[in-house]
């Protein structure tokens, strides 16, 4: 290609750069190239890369710009990049192809040019080995290109005779060649660098996603196991109509309710809230529930059952874990409810015909903090149509968009509004009232409800 002015030179260089960008993109996207990046070197992929970078070298010769009878070219680019990115075999192979083509064209600088092309591939490959069989990076690659082309010019001055003619050629092409090759290597380095980052990001993202998938699966299993701790069906208790619901804020939660059949037709009803949320709370909930069940089944008073469970839970409680618990034994024979309230927010007893519910207040410390704690128990006479509402503070602490809490007042109003409906419907009404109140606000805490109605 003949050079006739600065504008032409710029245009031709731009054209060359465009071709290099496209070629660089295509080569780096081949399976052979990415395999080499992953350190998986096979003879087949190396052969393909030799051919590709060799072809680039031939293109470099063909696209050369003739200045004052000498040609500035990017013949060394293919072998340099092949060596830098894929090792000495690819670099040397591409170099030999480029050199053979150049040599076949003969001319004044044939020998040094061919030699420089072979050496460009070889040196590139050695840098690859010295960098620990990795691409050396953008700065190293561009520096190498500048050095290599300077060496190429030196070789021409050393080998070509007469020296004056060699000096004229080198003087004309040295700067354009150094710039053109450095630019070409820069483009390759940029694309290879991007590719490496992209592949790392993808690998990290894949690892993260599969980890997330695994965690989700684990949480689903934990959720299922935890749900199996709640009674599948509440027991039929003569003279009582019972309904309950638990909505964990996360996959697993710290709330639970239970209904434990005791001797003599009696039943123990339990609602509890383990401090904290998520998996730690869920594990502590499992422990507490089992301990409580085991102690409830031994014939003893309510306060002894809770006291003994507390001693066992306190022995296992770590770092501020505790359980608030309400434990009530209903005896249908003498229509009484005997309760122990271990720091749980007071359940509400709606007496038939009363306008304000009665709070069943605390009779002892929360479980898990004082192994030797004593608990009192209270006994109430139950009457027909009495209604007891057990709940956890996740219900009254549900917030709306204005950060107001659902609160005890709304809870009482909701229950009063459907006081004569079946227990199941009261539970559902409260659930809906809380959901409507919260709107789109996320649920912060587990919400658990249980309603007992005396028939």
């Amino acid at each position: 290609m003949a050079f006739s002015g600065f504008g032409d030179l710029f245009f031709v260089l731009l054209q060359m750069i465009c071709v290099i960008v496209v070629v660089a993109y295509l080569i780096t996207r081949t399976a052979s190239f990415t395999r080499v990046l992953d350190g998986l070197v096979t003879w087949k992929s190396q052969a393909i890369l030799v051919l590709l970078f060799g072809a680039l070298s031939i293109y470099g010769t063909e696209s050369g710009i003739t200045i004052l009878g000498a040609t500035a070219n990017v013949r060394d680019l293919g072998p340099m990049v092949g060596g830098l990115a894929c090792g000495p075999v690819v670099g040397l192979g591409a170099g030999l192809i480029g050199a053979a083509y150049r040599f076949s064209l003969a001319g004044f600088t044939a020998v040094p040019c061919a030699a420089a092309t072979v050496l460009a591939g070889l040196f590139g490959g050695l840098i690859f080995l010295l960098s620990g069989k990795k691409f050396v990076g953008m700065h190293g690659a561009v520096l190498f290109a500048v050095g290599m082309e300077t060496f190429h010019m030196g070789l021409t001055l050393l080998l070509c005779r007469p020296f004056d003619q060699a000096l004229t050629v080198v003087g004309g092409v040295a700067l354009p060649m150094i710039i053109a090759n450095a630019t070409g290597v820069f483009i390759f380095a940029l694309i290879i660098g991007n590719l490496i980052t992209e592949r790392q990001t993808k690998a990290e993202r894949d690892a993260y996603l599969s980890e997330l998938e695994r965690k989700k699966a684990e949480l689903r299993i934990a959720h299922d196991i935890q749900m199996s701790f709640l009674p599948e069906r509440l027991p039929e208790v003569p003279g009582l109509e019972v309904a309950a619901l638990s909505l964990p804020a996360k996959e697993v939660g710290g709330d639970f309710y239970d209904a434990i059949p005791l001797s003599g037709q009696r039943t123990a009803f339990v609602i509890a809230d383990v401090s904290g949320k998520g998996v730690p709370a869920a594990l502590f909930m499992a422990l507490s529930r089992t301990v409580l069940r085991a102690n409830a089944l031994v014939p003893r008073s309510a306060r002894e059952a809770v006291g003994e469970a507390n001693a066992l839970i306190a022995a296992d409680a770590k770092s501020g874990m505790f359980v608030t618990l309400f434990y009530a034994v209903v005896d249908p024979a003498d229509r009484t409810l005997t309760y122990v309230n271990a720091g749980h927010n007071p359940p509400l007893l709606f007496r038939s015909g009363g306008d304000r519910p009665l709070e069943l207040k605390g009779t002892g410390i929360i479980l898990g903090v004082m192994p030797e704690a004593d608990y009192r128990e209270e006994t109430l006479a139950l009457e027909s149509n009495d209604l007891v509402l057990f709940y956890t503070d996740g219900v009254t602490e549900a917030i709306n968009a204005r950060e107001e809490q659902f609160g005890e007042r709304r809870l009482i109003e909701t229950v009063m509004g459907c006081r004569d409906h079946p227990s199941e419907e009261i539970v559902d009404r409260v659930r809906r009232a809380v959901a409507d109140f919260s709107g789109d606000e996320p649920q912060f805490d587990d919400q658990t409800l249980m309603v007992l109605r005396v028939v």
Partner: protein
Amino acid sequence: MSGRVEILERRAGAVDIIAVKGRLDAGSSEKAEERINRVLDAGGRCLLINLCDLDYISSSGLRVLLAALKRLKKDGGVLRIACAQPQILEVFTMAGFHRIFSLSPDEAAALAGFSAGP
């Protein structure tokens, strides 16, 4: 939701004073726990928690206080709570906290309690 608690730290001699204002519930207790832990991590062994301006505490808030107490007890430190309002005292009583925490009517009494020993 966590914007509704305000936590201020001061020192009086060897005593770290943490004043918790507003509401200590499921949404805000994590923030309070972090601040308390930071004081304890820095080596604080005498902690006074001032609840003069605390309007509300839930079970999550109780857990934060209890975790601080357990940690201090283990490390040989002292925790005192000052100036809890009637509605807070009611929750403490409900949970049985009045039996495990040193409660003082005001900050001065709590500070005097530190010099007198646990």
